[in-house]
C-alpha cells in the first residue's frame, strides 16, 4: 500500500521526504538552536552548551551501541539494565580502587552482552525477546547486588564525572571519541561491512560465508560495553550509585535517537552522525520545555511528535 501511495505521489514530494530523511534531524537541531537563542534567556552561553552536552553524553554513548545493533536488524532492550548493573558493580568493587572496579564492570557488561548475543546468534531467539529477558534479569541482578542507593566518594570517579581537559568535560570527550570510533568501524572496517551485510539479509550473509554468529555476538557485547560506559559516567557524575532509577527508560531514549537520526529499524544501514544529532535533538527539546517551565507531559508529547515525523520521513526508504 505504501508503495502504491509513493508511486502516485508527485516526484518532488518524494525528494522532499528523502531530504528530510537524511538531513531532517540536523534541520531540527538547527531550528531548536535558533528558536532558543531567540526566546530563551541565557541560552547563548558556554556554560549552557556544556550542561546540555554533559547531560546528553550518556544517551549518545548508549545510542551508538544501539545503532550498531539496529544495523544488524536487531534491537537491545537491556541497555538501561546494563547501566544499572554497571552502577551497582562500580559501588561494590570501588574498595579495590577505580581501575579494578571498572574492569569488573566490563566483565559483567560483557557477560550480559554475551548472553544477549548467544541467545540471538546461537539459540535463534528474536532480539526483542532475548534482550527483554536480560532487561528484566539485569536490573534484578543490579538490585540484588546493591539494593539501595549508595554514595561514592572515590576522588578518581568524582573527577571522571566532573573533571575536564582544556575546558571540555571528560564525558563529552568520551562520547565524542566513541562516536568517531564507531563511525570509523562502520565505514572502514571489514567488521563494519559484515555487520551491515548481516542487517541487510542474514541468510545471504550466511550463504556468502560471513561469520554471522561471531559478528552478532560481538555487536551485542559492544552494545553492552557502551551501555556500561554510560552507566559508569552517569554514576560518576551523580557521585552515587542508584541502580533503582539509573538507566530507566534509557532503551527508549536510545532507540528514539537512532530512529530520529535516520537509521532504519530494518537494518543494513547505520548513521552514527545522525544518531548523535538525534540524541542532541531530543536533549534540546527537553531542555527547551524545562527551561520554559512547561508541564512535563508536554515533553513526552513533543518527543512522540518528533518520532512520528522521523518515521514518516523514513517511510519511503524502507523499500529497497
Amino acid at each position, binding site marked *: 500500500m505504501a508503495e502504491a501511495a509513493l508511486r502516485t505521489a508527485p516526484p518532488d514530494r518524494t525528494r522532499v521526504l528523502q531530504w528530510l530523511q537524511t538531513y531532517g534531524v540536523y534541520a531540527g537541531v538547527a531550528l531548536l538552536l535558533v528558536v532558543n537563542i531567540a526566546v530563551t534567556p*541565557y541560552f547563548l552561553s558556554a556554560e549552557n552548551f556544556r550542561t546540555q552536552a554533559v547531560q546528553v553524553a550518556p544517551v549518545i554513548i548508549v545510542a551508538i551501541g544501539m545503532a550498531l545493533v539496529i544495523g544488524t536488524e536487531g534491537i537491545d532492550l537491556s541497555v538501561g539494565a546494563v547501566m544499572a548493573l554497571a552502577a551497582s558493580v562500580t559501588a561494590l568493587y570501588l574498595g579495590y580502587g577505580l581501575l579494578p572496579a571498572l574492569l569488573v564492570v566490563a566483565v559483567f557488561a560483557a557477560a550480559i552482552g554475551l548472553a544477549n548475543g548467544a541467545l540471538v546468534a546461537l539459540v535463534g531467539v528474536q532480539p526483542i525477546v532475548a534482550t527483554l529477558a536480560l532487561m528484566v534479569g539485569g536490573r534484578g541482578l543490579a538490585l540484588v547486588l546493591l539494593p539501595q542507593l549508595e554514595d561514592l566518594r572515590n576522588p578518581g570517579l568524582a573527577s571522571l564525572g566532573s573533571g575536564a581537559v582544556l575546558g571540555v568535560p571528560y564525558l563529552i570527550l568520551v562520547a565524542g571519541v566513541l562516536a568517531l570510533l564507531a563511525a570509523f568501524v562502520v565505514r572502514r572496517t571489514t567488521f563494519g561491512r559484515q555487520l551491515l551485510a548481516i542487517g541487510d539479509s542474514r541468510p545471504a550473509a550466511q550463504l556468502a560465508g560471513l561469520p554471522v*554468529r561471531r559478528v552478532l555476538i560481538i555487536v551485542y557485547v559492544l552494545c553492552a560495553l557502551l551501555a556500561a560506559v554510560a552507566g559508569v559516567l552517569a554514576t560518576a557524575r551523580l557521585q552515587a550509585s542508584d541502580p*533503582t532509577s539509573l538507566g530507566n527508560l534509557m532503551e527508549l531514549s536510545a532507540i528514539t535517537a537512532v530512529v530520529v537520526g535516520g537509521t532504519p529499524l530494518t537494518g543494513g544501514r547505520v548513521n552514527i552522525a545522525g544518531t548523535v544529532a538525534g540524541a542532541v535533538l531530543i536533549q534540546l527539546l527537553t531542555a527547551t520545555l524545562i527551561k520554559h517551565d512547561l508541564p512535563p507531559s508536554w515533553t513526552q508529547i513533543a518527543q512522540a511528535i518528533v518520532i512520528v515525523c522521523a518515521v514518516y520521513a523514513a517511510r519511503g526508504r524502507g523499500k529497497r
Partner: protein
Amino acid sequence: MQRTTHRSPLLARPVIVAMAAAVALTATSCAKSEDDASAGGKSPSAAADAGQKVASPKPGGKTCTIDAYGGEKLDLEGATVGFSQSEKEANPFRIAETQSIKDEAAKRGVKLLTANAQSQFSKQISDVQDLLAKGADLLVIAPLNSDGWDPVLQAAAAKKVPIVTIDRKINATACEDYVSFIASDFVEQGRRAADLMIEATGGKGEVAILLGAAGNNVTTERTKGFKDRVAEKAPGLKVVFEQTGDFAREKGQQVTEQLIQSKPGIKGIYAENDEMGLGAVAALKGAGKKAGDVEIVTVDGTRNAVQGIVDGWITGVVESNPRFGPLAFETLDAFTQGKEVAQDIIIEDGAYDASNAERDLGRAYH
C-alpha cells in the same frame, strides 16, 4: 532465519544459566565497597528511635471501639500480628518502616508475621490472605493502592480481625472495614517546608519546586501545602519553576542543572523528597556554586539529607516519619482492650535545620 542459526540450543541454555549463577556468586563473595575499606564508617544504628507522637486526633475526631467494630477483646501480648509491606525494602523509608514494626513487636513480645508485596498489588492481596490463613489475630497493612481491597476486607471481617493501615489509606469505611488509619499529613509537610523556605529567603525572591512523580497523592499534597502557605504568608516569594524530578536523585540533578542555567537568580529550591534535593546539591556543586548560595528545603528526613544540613548545602528538612511501629501497636493494644481509638491518626513529623541537624543526625533514618 532460525534455520541457519540452529546449532546447539540445548547446550547453550544451561551454559548461560550456569554462567549467570557463577557471576552472581563471585560478585557477592569478593566484593569490596568503599564502606568496607573505611572501617567504622557506620555510626551506631539509630538507638534513639524518634519518639513517635500523635499530632492529632483533635478531641472531636471520630473514634472506634471494639464493640462498634465487632470482635472480641484479647491480650496483645501473646497475640499474632500480621504485617503486610507494600514496596520492597529498597529505600530508606520502607526499610525504617518495616524495622520499626519488627522492633516494636519484639519489644512487646508479640508474634509477628511479615510479608512484602514487592510493589505488586495482586501479591499484596494474596499476602494478606496468607497472613489471615496463618492465624494472624490482628493486621497492620501498608497498602500499595487505596482501591481493590474488598476481597481482603471480607475475609478479615469473617474472622473478625481488626486492621490498622499505615502511610496510605484504604478506600473503605473506617470502624467497619478497618479500625484506624495512621499517617503523616503531606499537606502539612508542604506547609512546614514553605515556612522553612520563607524564613531562609526572607519571604522575597524566586523559588523553584522539584515535583515528585506525577499522579501521586504525595506529590499533589506536598505541592498544595507549599503553595498555599507561600501565597498566604509571603506573597513576595514567587514560584517560577515547577518540574518533575520523579523522586530520583539523577533526575533532580538534571532538572536543577537546567534551572540554574536559565534562571541564575533563583533563591531557593523546594524538593519534594530528599533524593531530588541531594540531586540539586550535586547540580549546584557541579555549576561551581557554594554552599548556601541557593536555599534547599526537602521533605523526608533521611540521613544523607540531614548530613547535607550539617555540611551547609541544605537549609532544612521536614521529616516524614516512617516509624509507625509504636503508634500502630499502641492503637491495637488500646483497641483490643476495649478502649476508644481514633479513626484517623496523624503522626507527628519532626524537622531538621542548622540548629538541630548535628545533634539529631542519629535520629534520621537510612
